[in-house]
């Protein structure tokens, strides 16, 4: 196989006021033609920075390439002219950026944004380029692409935007596609579509793909090779099977161990400690401080890459010939490793509800007389101390439901009660204030939800300031420090600004902010989507512990069904503004009643390459119908494999079994 891209000993650092952040510290990898390399690793380990370095898109004024080479087709990208680089971008190397919400120009039509790239590299007419754009959009599964090309990004849901970003990247059949968390924002069904699409493209055009993701299931599904990054270095590289089954680096072990087991009922494992601050990376192995098998040398000398096989390398002194045989060591630490038994799921059926939502509606006024019915008559209650999971396709109204409960949107109709008292409509100032402290929200888009001009300490402490929870400046700082530690961030991050963080780090800042006011209820909108599994586990454990200690109640909105299943006591499934099924977690996973729920569950990828390769799943055809003009009757009927004549009537919300609600004509 011919190498297409070789990254050799790449060092990248950021010059910030506090000092030099050494984000990438000697990264080496090779991507061959037609191959998919997955990069996984700690959030903040330098995955995005590395990929931006390949694109030469790091901010000029603060980033510096300290040493190393990036050879693309034998040509060192770091040395070629701007002009040359421009012609490589888009046509030879294309990239899908991590954050789809901000990656599209808000004032340019989708069609133009896609066509632009085609026009730049293929020198074809505007009209032809637009035609191509429509084809590509169709390819990535945007419904009615011919009309959609004239719309603007804000008229697209998050998932659709993600697909547009992918469309832009693949528009010119690049030889290398770098996809930075391409499916993080997507629900599992669409994720499955996208991954299939990428594979399809690869098969047709022989594109090489660098896939950055924290979802090991996706890795198992897609990748040929995996590189594991930690603290700016690649610590292990090998074929999927090698990494998943014979991993050598303790960090990889930790990662794999952190994956929630769909069936298991125990506390999630997470790697203890916090990742190192890259301002002053440790001298030896960066992972040493969190590595229970660390040896003295790990604190002194950086380990080299040891070859395990032709394709498998790992950077850990454990592979040195003088290293002790781990089997003995593992024995001695067995006790520590042993996973604590998870608490049993409580039966919340009899508990009082803390939040009651009754026929909640939120319609957004569009132009003229048209309304977008984002939430259209949703009723459920959340009981004290429970976790209610909310899942559903992107754009189905999960966030809107959460936000309307939070009083961030004025409901169009329906009622919301908190502890039995209505909290919809006008409230007295003090009541409002009280609710604001009692109910908190973790926002879906971590970057956008942080004021770019505020330091982390001030963002996190905002609630503390508002509700005057800190006695002194020092007190305030201590609280923030403590919170950062809780969410697995370095205390030193306190004085940094949001743009200086990686996606996952930002998400944790958002969590810390919500926790700061000691709320009773937290509406967590995708709180862990951008985190690597270990930190996901850490956060989930944290949420669980807090719930246990403080009797917290969660509304947990997420795409990642396995995580939702793990954390939730009950799960609600939404489709196009309606709740279609609501049941206790175990019941739902064992016996999903609604066809949509069934499809959703089947699409969840598992972090096992062997299973993933051969798996069949129910792939829903078509896209989410236009929420401005939803189908009559059962809204799912346009995509339902079992749709029948009767489905043209609106199904009623009924309790099919005790505590198991569903709205489907199939269930009588």
């Amino acid at each position, binding site marked *: 196989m011919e190498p297409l891209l070789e990254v050799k000993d790449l060092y990248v650092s950021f010059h910030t*006021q506090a000092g030099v952040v050494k984000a990438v510290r000697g990264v080496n990898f090779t991507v061959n033609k037609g191959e998919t390399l997955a990069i996984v690793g700690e959030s903040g380990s330098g995955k995005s920075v590395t990929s931006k370095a390949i694109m030469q898109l790091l901010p000029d004024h603060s980033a510096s390439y300290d040493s190393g080479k990036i050879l693309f087709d034998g040509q060192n990208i770091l040395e070629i002219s701007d002009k040359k680089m421009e012609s490589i971008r888009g046509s030879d190397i294309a990239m899908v950026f991590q954050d789809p919400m901000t990656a599209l120009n808000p004032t340019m039509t989708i069609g133009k944004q896609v066509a632009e790239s085609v026009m730049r590299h293929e020198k074809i007419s505007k009209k032809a380029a637009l035609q191509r754009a429509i084809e590509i959009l169709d390819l990535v599964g945007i419904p009615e692409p011919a009309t959609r090309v004239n719309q603007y990004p804000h008229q697209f849901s998050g998932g659709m935007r993600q697909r547009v970003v992918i469309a832009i990247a693949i528009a010119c059949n690049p030889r290398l596609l770098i996809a930075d968390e391409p499916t993080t924002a997507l629900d599992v069904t669409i994720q499955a579509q996208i991954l299939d699409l990428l594979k399809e493209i690869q098969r047709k055009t022989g594109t090489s793909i660098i896939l950055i993701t924290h979802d090991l299931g996706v890795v198992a599904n897609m990748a040929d090779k995996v590189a594991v990054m930690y603290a700016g270095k690649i610590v292990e590289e090998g074929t999927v099977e090698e990494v998943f089954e014979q991993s050598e680096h303790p960090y990889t072990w930790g990662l794999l161990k952190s994956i929630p087991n769909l069936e298991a009922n125990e506390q999630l494992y997470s790697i203890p400690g916090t990742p190192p601050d890259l301002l002053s990376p440790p001298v030896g192995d960066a992972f*040493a401080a969190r590595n229970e*098998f660390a040896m003295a040398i790990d*604190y002194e000398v950086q380990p080299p890459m*040891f070859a*395990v096989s032709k394709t498998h390398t790992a950077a850990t002194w454990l592979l040195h010939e003088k290293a*002790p045989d781990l089997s003995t060591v593992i024995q001695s630490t067995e006790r520590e490793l042993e996973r604590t038994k998870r608490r049993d799921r409580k039966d919340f059926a009899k508990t009082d509800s803390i939040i009651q939502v009754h026929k909640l509606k939120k319609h957004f006024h569009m132009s003229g007389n048209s309304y977008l019915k984002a939430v259209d008559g949703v009723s459920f209650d959340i009981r004290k101390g429970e976790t209610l999971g909310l899942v559903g396709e992107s754009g189905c109204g999960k966030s809107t439901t959460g*936000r309307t409960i939070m009083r961030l949107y004025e409901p169009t109709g329906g009622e919301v009660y908190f502890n039995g008292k209505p909290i919809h409509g006008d409230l007295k100032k003090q009541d409002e204030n009280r609710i604001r402290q009692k109910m908190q929200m973790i926002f879906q888009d971590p970057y956008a939800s942080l004021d770019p*001009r505020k330091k982390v300490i001030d963002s996190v402490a905002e609630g503390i300031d508002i509700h005057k929870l800190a006695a002194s400046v020092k007190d305030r700082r201590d609280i923030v420090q403590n919170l950062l530690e809780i969410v697995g961030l370095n205390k030193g991050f306190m004085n940094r600004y949001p743009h200086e963080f990686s996606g996952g780090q930002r998400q944790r800042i958002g969590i810390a902010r919500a926790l700061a*006011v000691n709320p009773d209820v937290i509406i967590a909108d995708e709180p862990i989507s951008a985190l690597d599994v270990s930190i996901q586990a850490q956060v989930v454990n944290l949420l669980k512990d807090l719930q246990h200690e403080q009797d917290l109640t969660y509304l947990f909105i997420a795409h990642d069904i396995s995580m939702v299943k793990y954390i939730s006591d009950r799960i609600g499934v939404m489709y196009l503004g309606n709740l279609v099924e609501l049941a206790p977690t175990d019941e739902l996973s064992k016996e999903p009643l609604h066809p949509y729920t069934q499809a959703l569950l089947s699409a969840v990828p598992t972090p096992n390459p062997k299973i993933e390769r051969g798996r069949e799943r129910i792939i829903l055809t078509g896209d989410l119908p236009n929420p401005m003009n939803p189908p009559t009757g059962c809204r799912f009927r346009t995509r339902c494999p079992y749709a029948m004549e009767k489905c043209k009537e609106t199904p009623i919300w009924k309790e099919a079994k005790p505590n198991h609600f569903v709205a489907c004509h199939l269930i009588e």
Partner: protein
Amino acid sequence: MTNTNLEKYEVKETEGVFREDSFKVVGAKKESQDTIARPHVGILKESWLRLTKNKGAVVSLVIISLLVLLALLGPYMNEYTYEQTDYDKAFQEPNGEHWFGTDKFGRDQWTRIWEGTRISLYIALLASVLDLAIGVIYGSISALVGGKVDNIMQRIIEVLVGIPNLILIILLIMLMKPGIFTITVAMVITGWVNMARLVRSQVFKLKSQEFILASRALGASNGRLIKEHFIPNTLGLIIVNMMFTIPSAIFTEAFLSFIGLGLQEPLASLGVLINDGFEGMRNNFYLLLYPTLVIVGLMICFNLLADGLRDALDPKMRK
């Protein structure tokens, strides 16, 4: 396990790298990374630190301080006072006795210019304060509350702009004595309108952003939103706009003085001196040149400083 080193990543096994106990498992270290990398400094102090790294801004700050000092002390640096006339010495080019020459009354320009700078600096300060105290607040509230309130507030601005200023100003002369105070009142009436509209447009843009929602969710009041989020995020624009309000206020003052509302002879501001100098620019160019130089100097420094400030307050701009 086959522990073979790849040639590519060869370790130099030099003497001393490995010790006896190098490969003894010692386990994780809990406290090893608990260092706070960046000392906590207040946002103001940090911005100040960043500002001082900007050469242009520092030089500007020094020059502004110098000009302010001259405005305070300049008039006392020679024996003339600003109103002292000497008809035999009218229209003297700058010389050893009159450093900036004399005007048609034989008054010492040096003294008059620094006296005038003092007044113009006051006007600049006033304009900035108005911009900030009324314009920014008005604009933010209008955009933030939105709906009917916004509608009414915008109509009020339209009415204020629509009524001819000059009429109001002449009426003011009738009502009160001309002077600094009257100028102040005249400027209060409409001096802040542009700022209000600009801030409003910006706040509209920011209003629906996620981080504002996040702050709302935490229970932030409108006042807090304005103070903590809208103003900091609009600051670039505010500063840029102020760089226009200031000179235009200085010249508005000159115009007001010219039609008798403002300063009364023999007091003069820089704007008035420039107006006067303009009349004689063909033959006594120095009368126009020096006050213009002072004002241009001041404005360039203000701008460099403001740019520095803007960058210093924008965390993304920093090096």
